[in-house]
């Protein structure tokens, strides 16, 4: 268990290191000198260009050697200094990220865990039930194939405008003041529902397909046949097949996390839901590069944290890892 954990930790650290390095290198080494063209954009402002230029030179440390720039970059990162947003001037990027990340968590976390659980159950049911299988599988394939943002568009159209049952943009109504009041909470949940629902449904299909294939595989395994020959109840055989099928699904979850977080960026964009993804897209559109880089780093960190949680879940449910842990301890 210690070894397994150490290996994972190295991967996490390496990923973070690479992310920060990309963040540092991209504006400096891309063809066409992005920093200069950024500065050039502010040419129209009277005296503004001077201020912006100084800001950029200071923030990027452009007057120093590359190695010093690199170390300085890390140092300011550890101080929590990610620069200042140009879009919402002069709010620090770190501040914006802090207030946005909660929206990612409340959408992604429930959507992923619920779609994983429901998807596995539905897939297992479909794997054991031939009649249901041919009926629901095309539907699951359709869900799994839908690009997140397209599905969000469909959901907005159907539930937002056709039936008009849910609001389709922002985290809460414009007239609301955030607080623990009943109207606000209801309003908040109503705004939260559609982005959550989109993420939930698109994720569902993939998990169901995965589990269904695992079950068909396990159903033919020798132990299943043997149990049936011994006269074990169907229910017991199913339970064993499910337990064996669940483990690769957890690994699948770890592999899919990147895709899911990518999907969340686009879903937030469709719903103008003010999480990191939405901020990132806004930053692209307004050329706010400090905010863009800050969001990038925050999203990577979120992906790492999510991976860490999945790892822990895996350790809890994988008997072989658990066993080696008990031996060690």
């Amino acid at each position: 268990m210690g070894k397994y954990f150490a290996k994972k930790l190295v991967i996490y650290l390496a990923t973070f290191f690479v992310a920060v390095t990309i963040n540092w290198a991209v504006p400096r080494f891309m063809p066409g000198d992005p920093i200069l063209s950024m500065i050039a954009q502010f040419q129209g402002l009277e005296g503004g260009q001077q201020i912006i230029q100084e800001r950029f030179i200071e923030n990027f440390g452009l007057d120093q050697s590359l190695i010093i720039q690199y170390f300085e970059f890390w140092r300011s990162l550890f101080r929590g200094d990610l620069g200042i947003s140009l879009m919402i001037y002069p709010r620090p990027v770190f501040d914006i990220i802090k207030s946005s990340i909660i929206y990612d968590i409340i959408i992604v976390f429930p959507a992923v865990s619920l779609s994983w659980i429901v998807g596995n159950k539905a897939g297992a049911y479909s794997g054991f039930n031939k009649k249901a299988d041919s009926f629901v599988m095309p539907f699951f394939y359709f869900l799994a194939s839908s690009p997140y943002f397209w599905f969000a568009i469909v959901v907005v159209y159907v539930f937002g405008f056709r039936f008009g049952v849910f609001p389709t943009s922002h985290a809460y109504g414009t007239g609301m003041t955030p607080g623990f009041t009943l109207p606000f909470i209801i309003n908040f949940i109503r705004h939260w529902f559609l982005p959550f629902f989109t993420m939930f449904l698109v994720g569902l299909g993939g998990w169901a397909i995965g589990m269904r294939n695992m079950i068909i595989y396990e159903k033919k395994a020798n132990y299943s046949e043997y149990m049936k020959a011994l006269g074990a109840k169907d229910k017991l055989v199913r339970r064993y097949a499910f337990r064996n099928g669940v483990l690769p699904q957890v690994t699948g979850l770890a592999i899919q996390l990147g895709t899911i977080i990518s999907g969340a960026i686009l879903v937030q964009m469709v719903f103008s839901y003010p999480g990191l993804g939405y901020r990132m897209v806004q930053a692209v559109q307004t050329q706010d590069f400090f905010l863009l880089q800050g969001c990038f780093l925050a999203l990577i960190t979120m992906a790492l944290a999510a991976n860490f949680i999945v790892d822990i879940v895996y350790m809890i449910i994988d008997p072989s890892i658990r066993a080696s842990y008990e031996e060690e301890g």
Partner: protein
Amino acid sequence: MSFWNKIKKNENIYYAVTNTKVQIGVVLFLLILLLSIIGPMITRYSYTEFAGPGYEPPSSDYWFGTTIQGRDVFTQTVFGLRSTILVGFIGGLIASIIGVIIGLIAGYKGGWLDELLMMLTNVVLTFPTLAVLIIVAAYLPYRGIVNMAVLVGLTVWPWTARAVRSQTMSLKNSRFVDLSRISSNHIIRILFEDIAANMFSYIFMVFILQFLGTILATVGLEFIGLGPTRGISLGLIMQQAVNWNALELGMWWWGIIPGLILTIMIVSLYFINTGLDEAFNPKLREF
């Protein structure tokens, strides 16, 4: 007839072409492909032209309706489809090549090289692809179809690398590989002629998934507005639809039809992939 007999002799291909999922998938995919090839030829409009009145729902004049400014959605969709398929093909190819090479080397060599390559793979896998693409694409002064495809291809390969690695590990101890090794064949020959050739069907399936992954990532980028700097793309059409509040105005055709065609294409690729999986994997064959 003799062609059919030849197919029958090769068990894998026989099972592949008689699999219902493969058949449905191939038919659907060919239809979409045909649409992307013929569509631009038969359309009466160009995708930038104001073809008619705005707000037109689908009709015999404007098959997929028109945008708010009166551009023809059908024309935009078929041209966008072309660019999307092209990006998917190039990017998928690049991703497959990188993934196969890394997977082969890591699986065959083992040891520290394996550890290092797998570490790299896991690092890239942990990244939310789209976030990386956004940050790089945002700084690119000019984005064309080819450099977009390369960019996406460079980020979506890890999945292939892992799959090919585990296949390689199970193949490398088989007798024919041993034989090749004691005949002192060059490692490149062993890797490509003995190992890769024996998982060709597998690599083909991997390519389908990479094609699909590249398309999804690209369309996502286009939707954010980081697609090719010139021309039209499926993601761009949908972005414009959302930006112009097409849904609020009831113009469902603008945002939903292009995405529906994309989704049908992805479903078809999934079907081909799953069908091939069943065909090559006897355990999944009959249900």
